[in-house]
């Protein structure tokens, strides 16, 4: 899935998802530890923990799989 000779689009996506995932997951952990929940409906489900964690995992996978310089298979 390499488009450019240098950086694949999937790598860009991986970087952004991993960064976002880390931020959201980190906030979720903070909520979990401090017990201070944001004033939103269903806050007790701790969506930032599982949603952020999922994005971090997915983004990390794409970063590693499509890191620049690594030979890509289509």
């Amino acid at each position, binding site marked *: *899935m390499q488009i450019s000779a240098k950086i694949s689009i999937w790598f860009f996506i991986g970087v*952004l998802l991993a960064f976002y995932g880390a931020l*959201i997951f980190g906030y979720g952990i903070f909520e979990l530890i401090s017990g201070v929940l944001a004033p939103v*409906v269903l806050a007790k489900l701790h*969506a*930032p923990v599982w949603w*952020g964690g999922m994005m971090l995992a997915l983004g990390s996978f794409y970063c590693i799989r499509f890191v620049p310089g690594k030979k890509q298979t289509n």
Partner: protein
Amino acid sequence: MARLFIGNHIAQSVLAVLLPSSVLAHLSIIDIVIIASYFVMVVWIGIYLKGQSNTSVDFFMAGRQMTAWIAGLSFLSANLGSLELMGWAGSAYQYGILAAHWYWIGAIPAMLFMGLVMMPFYYICKTNSVPGYLNLRFGESSRVLSGVCFAFMTILMSGVNMFAMALVMKVVLGWNISFSILMSSVVVALYVGLGGLRSAIFNEVLQFALIWCGALLVPILGLIEAGGWHNLQAKILMNYHTSEYTHLWKGLGHFSTNAMGVQWTGIVFGLGFVISFGYWTTDFLVVQRAMAAKNLRAAQMAPIIAAAFKMAIPFFVILPGLLGLVVLHNNDGTLMHLVGQDSVSAANPNSYNEVLPLMMERYLCPGLLGLGITALIAGFMSGMAGNVSAFSTVWTYDIYKPLIKKNGSDSHYVSVGRWATVLGIVVSIGTAYLVMQAAAIMDYVQALFSFFIAPLLGTVLAGMFWKRATKAGGFWGLLAGTVTSVALYAWVRVDPSAIRYVAFSSEAKAMAADLYRALWAFSSCAVVTILVSYCTKPKPLSELAGLVYGASELPHAEPVPLIKNHWFWAAIVITVFFILNIVFY
């Protein structure tokens, strides 16, 4: 004097951003970091790709190097503008699940037809645009007419996207509308102007991922709060005393038995055939993405991949609208009542179009709210960028090159394309202010579709599948269809009771009038094309090779495993399509 006024206006806008007055949600620092890093990434991609967009093939066709997945996701993402996100969530609140017709019968059959039947012709004739195909098939006049219409439409659509994005910023963050329009314009102009179609496609794939991550959580949490789909249906029935909100086909027997005021014939023939096939097979905005694929197989797979994802989009666009009917409440505990944009008042301060931001504000905590807002911005910007990049191509190849400078150098046309991008953005800004006068975004967009898309479908189908169609037939058919559409629109505007002739019922509503007007435009185009063609001399068969079914030898497809066969995947998609229609009947 004018510059002073503009300077003051911008200064006031910036001040309004810094001092928001009444807003739905306040962003935390984590939200701001998420939104800001998205803008940085988008511009970085544009700058990174600038060095790879030096020739016209690179700039306008992304070098024809895209894989099926990238072309397919971009094909879909270019359509994920205001129409898809806020507009249809608002329509779902207003009309119920009927709005899902625009995703299923109004998209899937046409996308599959595009991939399986029409794409080979677009691809093998190696044209740069849909008007370019008309030039090869029907001559210069048809190309210029369709090019001018398309350029006009894309600019209007781009303005719709700008306005919708600015509206989100106003509703959720309290940002000044003018500032939002200016900000999105500069970013889109930067990344499309620098990297051309390649940059637009890269960003569309990125935006596709963000839209899924950012918007999918709202319906998941909404369904948990509502107690699942069956409880949602029961609560809607209890609150509104009708089941039409949750049934796709049940209320379409007559114009008066559904909120949209439309009958099943309008949905099946007007939407499912004319508007849908017109949009997905002739609108260069989406066709351009598939044409950028690296080979014919990838070009054929692109619309099929897009169709598979398209079927899932109602989950995070239509479902939040339906959930809004049940879960949104005022501070005093009463059910919130959203109204049309022109009926907003102190008693009902929010419009249908704001249902998605309201749902986001309800469920998304810091971080997730920033992601949700970023998803909306990404959707709007992909819609804008898609329109602007398509405008740039059509302007350069189908208007500037044939009418203004025929024998320019390749680098000259790349330069014209870059400037056309900027020009397109500037005109879109003006359009965005025009859209503010429209009662509802969706009605406006539907009117545009029937003006240009419906007659174009008639002309392209005649050109591609009827050897006898002539140059004069193509041109006069296209003109007749467009004039019919505009005339019918004007007729109903001047005399609203004329809707009983246009839509075959005095109980039909505005949306129905758009669907039937598209049918009229297509029919008049087809009739005039046939009549004029029989009165004029056709092209010899030898000149139709590669352009017309029956006169062209399509490239022989190498056998591939079933898992890579586009017919196999198309069969799966159409099966799921039928299952969805039966389940939500």
